[in-house]
C-alpha cells in the first residue's frame, strides 16, 4: 500500500506539473474564466436592474438568480474543457512509448491511472478555483447563501472527477489525442441528450433510466443546495467505473500487443 501511494504521488506530481506547464492549459483557463465572467456580468446586470428583473421574471434571491444560474452554465463549460485536458493522459504516453517504460517499473496499472486521475482532477480544481472570484464579488454586492455556493462547488468538483475519469478512459483507447477528445465529446453529448431524447419520444422507461444514469440529473440537486448522499455516491461510482475500465484497457495493452 505504501508503495502504491508513493507511485501514485510520483505520477500525479509529474502529470500535474506537466499540465500546468503547458500554454494550452492557461489558454483554456483564460477562455473559461472570460466566458464565466461574461455570464456572471450578464446575470448581475439582469439581477440588479429591477425592470429587467421584472421583465425576465428573475427571482429576488441573488443566490438563485445569479449563483445557481452561473454554476449551471459553468457545468456545461467544464464539459467542454475536460476532453481537451484529458485527451493527452494516455494517448500521448502511448504515442511516445513512455507508457511501456512505466509498465516495466514496479508501479501497478492502478497507481498509473490513479496518479493521472489525481493530476487531471487537480487541474480541473484550478479551473474551479478561478471562479471563486464571482461568489466573492457577489458577497461584496449582496448577501449570497454560502452553503448553497459550497454545494455548487461540490457538484462541479464531483462532476469534473466523473468527466475526467470518462476522458481518461477514452484516452487509454487510442494513441491519437484528437480521437480521444472526439470520443469523449461524443460520450458527454450522448449523456447530455439522453434525457431529452427519452422525453421527446415519451418513453417512460428511458426517462426513469436517464434520471438514474445521467450526470446532469445528479448535478441539479447539488446546484439547488440539496446535498444528497445518493448523488455524491453516484459520482464516486461513475468515476471508479471509468477508472477501472482505463486500468483494464492499459493492462490489456500488455496482452493484446
Amino acid at each position, binding site marked *: 500500500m505504501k508503495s502504491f501511494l508513493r507511485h501514485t504521488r*510520483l505520477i500525479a506530481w509529474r502529470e500535474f506539473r506537466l499540465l500546468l506547464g503547458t500554454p494550452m492549459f492557461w489558454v483554456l483557463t483564460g477562455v473559461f474564466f472570460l466566458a464565466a465572467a461574461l455570464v456572471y456580468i450578464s446575470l448581475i446586470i439582469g439581477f440588479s436592474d429591477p425592470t429587467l428583473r421584472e421583465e425576465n421574471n428573475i427571482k429576488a434571491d441573488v443566490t438563485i438568480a445569479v449563483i445557481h444560474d452561473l454554476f449551471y452554465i459553468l457545468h456545461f463549460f467544464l464539459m467542454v474543457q475536460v476532453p481537451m485536458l484529458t485527451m493527452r493522459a494516455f494517448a500521448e504516453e502511448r504515442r511516445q512509448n513512455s507508457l511501456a517504460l512505466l509498465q516495466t*517499473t514496479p508501479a*501497478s496499472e492502478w497507481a498509473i491511472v490513479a496518479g493521472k486521475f489525481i493530476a487531471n482532477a487537480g487541474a480541473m480544481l484550478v479551473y474551479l478555483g478561478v471562479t471563486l472570484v464571482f461568489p466573492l464579488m457577489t458577497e461584496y454586492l449582496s448577501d449570497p447563501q454560502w452553503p448553497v455556493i459550497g454545494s455548487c462547488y461540490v457538484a462541479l468538483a464531483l462532476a469534473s472527477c466523473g468527466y475526467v475519469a470518462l476522458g481518461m478512459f477514452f484516452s487509454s483507447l487510442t494513441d491519437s489525442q484528437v480521437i480521444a477528445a472526439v470520443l469523449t465529446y461524443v460520450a458527454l453529448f450522448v449523456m447530455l441528450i439522453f434525457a431529452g431524447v427519452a422525453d421527446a419520444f415519451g418513453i417512460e422507461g428511458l426517462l426513469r433510466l436517464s434520471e438514474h444514469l445521467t450526470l446532469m440529473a445528479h448535478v441539479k440537486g447539488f446546484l439547488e443546495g440539496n446535498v444528497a448522499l445518493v448523488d455524491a455516491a453516484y459520482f464516486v461510482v461513475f468515476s471508479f467505473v471509468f477508472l477501472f475500465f482505463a486500468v483494464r484497457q492499459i493492462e490489456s495493452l500488455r496482452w493484446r500487443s
Partner: protein
Amino acid sequence: MIDVRNLSKFYGATRSLDGLTFSVPEGEVLGLLGPNGAGKTTAMRILTGQTRATSGSARVAGFDVATEHLKIRRLLGYLPEDSPVYPEMRVEEYLKMMAGLKDLPATHMKREIDRVLDETNLLGVRRRLIGNLSKGNRQRVGIAQALLGDPALLVLDEPTVGLDPKQIAEVCELIRSMRGERTVILSTHILSNVSMTCSCVVIIKDGRLVAEGPVETIGDRVRGRRLVLRVRGGEENGVRSAVASAGGFPPEAIEVSTVDAMLRVAVAVESGTEDKRAAIARRIVEEGWELIELTEDRATLEDIFLHATASGVERPA
C-alpha cells in the same frame, strides 16, 4: 538467469517468433541480433512482460514472464527503443521520479542518482531540461534510468542509436564493464558494438534461432575455422598431402590454388580440434619449401551475421 523455450508469437496471422529457444546464464552480456523484422523487439517485449507469447515459455530469474511479471519488474532495468524520456523534466528530477517508481529507498536515492549520472557522464547536465539535451544525451538519460537500482537484468533496445562514435565507445565500455556483475540483453544493428561488449550472441531470423554461442567461438560454429597458408617451392599435390598428413585433415578439407606464383592452401578445420599450425609449419620447412604465411582465418561477426541470416543455418548441436 533467462530461459526461453519454444517461444512463439503471432500477430493475427503474422508470425513474429517461431519456436525461439535460448538461455542466458547470470552475468552474461547477450547480443540479440537479426535483420529488421526478425523478432528481436518482440522477444524483448515478451521478456520484459509487455506482451504475452502465443505459446512457449520464458523465465527470468526463475519467474514466469506471463504470470509473474510484477516480480520481474523489480529485477529489471529497461531501455526501450528511442529512449522515451519526459522532455519537460530536468535530468535529475526525472531520475528521482524513476528511482521512486523503482522503489529505491529514499536514503539511498541521492547516492544512486549520483552513481548513474557519473556512469553515464551526465553529471554536467543534471539540472538541464531533457528536452534541451542532444539526442545522445537523451539516450544516456534513458540508459541512466535503466541502471537505477542496480538491476539484476538490463534490457537495452538499440542503446547506441543517435550517439556519436566517442559516446558509442563510452556506452559500449559501460556495458562491457557489467560483464559478470549483471545480465544484459542488448539489441543492436551495429555489429562492432556486439564484438566490443557482448560475451555471447543469439542470431534470429524470421522469428527462429539461426545461431547461438559465445562471441569468440560462434564463428567457428557457424562458418567453421580455416587455416590459410602461402607456400613457395612445392607442387600442388605434394603440398596438399603434406598438410593433410601433418594436421590429420581429410584431403577434401583442403583447397589449393596458385596465387602470385605461390600456392595458397585453405584448410577447413573442424570445431574443437587442437591447433596444428606448429606441426604444419615444421612439415613445410622439412620438405624444403618456403612458408610465407600461416594464419588462422576467423570469421568476423559481420561474416557470421551475413552467413547465418542468408543461409538460415540451424543451431549447431
